[in-house]
């Protein structure tokens, strides 16, 4: 039964390699995009930390800036 699932009458190598290639591609793309996202979030937080009080007030008036600060921890899937 298990042998049949793995070898698939001689087609196993083709089937498993096609599925593996797809899933590995998905993982690589996800990791690359995630790394870039976290990098930009960290850059934003670092820059935000360097602002003086007045500039922080101005920056916080924009809702997108507030969302970035709010989601920095929760977005780490």
């Amino acid at each position, binding site marked *: 039964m298990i042998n049949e699932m793995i070898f*698939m009458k001689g087609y196993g190598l083709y089937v498993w390699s096609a599925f593996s290639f797809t899933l590995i591609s998905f993982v690589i793309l996800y990791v690359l995009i*995630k790394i870039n996202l976290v990098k930009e979030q960290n850059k*934003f937080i670092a820059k935000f930390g360097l602002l003086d009080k007045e500039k922080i007030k101005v920056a916080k008036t924009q809702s997108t800036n507030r969302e*970035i600060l709010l989601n920095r921890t929760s977005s780490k899937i």
Partner: protein
Amino acid sequence: MFKFFKTNKIFAITSKAPKYIFFIFVIILSIGLVEALFLSPEDYIQSHSVRIMYVHVPSAWIALGIFSLIAFFSIINFIFKNKNFSLIAKSLAPPGFVLNIIALVTGSIWGKPTWGTWWAWDARITSMLILVLFYSMYILAWRIFDKKEQVNKITSIIAILGVINVPIIKFSVDWWSTLHQSSSVKVLSETSIHPSMLVPLLIMTAAFSLFTLLIFLMKYNTELIKIKNKGLDRL
């Protein structure tokens, strides 16, 4: 209508959505994989090699759909000059590119046991290869050109030229004699694929669509934060 496309309104949704989409994607993909690899029947001619269809066909469908969307948003951006549309188009490109590569590679793997060759210059495969070149040019253009207006113009031209290839890919099997069979899944007429194979195919298509949405949202958020980073520099 364009009020909806304001970045602050969109970001409120796009920043929270990925974690939920990731969760649903994992569930749907798991069901799809069990169906595609173990529960669906083997084909009476192709035997178990038919299972490659469950990754090959959804990736090809979605790669085509994404490029059509990129062209659509590029045209709208060209007309209305709304930077959000170019951002959406730019964020759609990475999943489209990867799915196009997956379609070509899994097609090649499927070709060996079915046709006896890894590659053939048939109309469908060649036109898919041309599409991957357009995807590459589109992504590279965003990396190479710095000026906003210049990059918008060049990427829009690439998308509009590339979309001409989409109907060629779709109808290549009808227009020319190719190794590919004609479409089995049709929207307007009766589908010739058996439900025992159609169901896993649709589940895998749903899983791939969710993955596309997930990557798109993450890329879109990255691009928005990049813009906001530049905004902080200007304060």
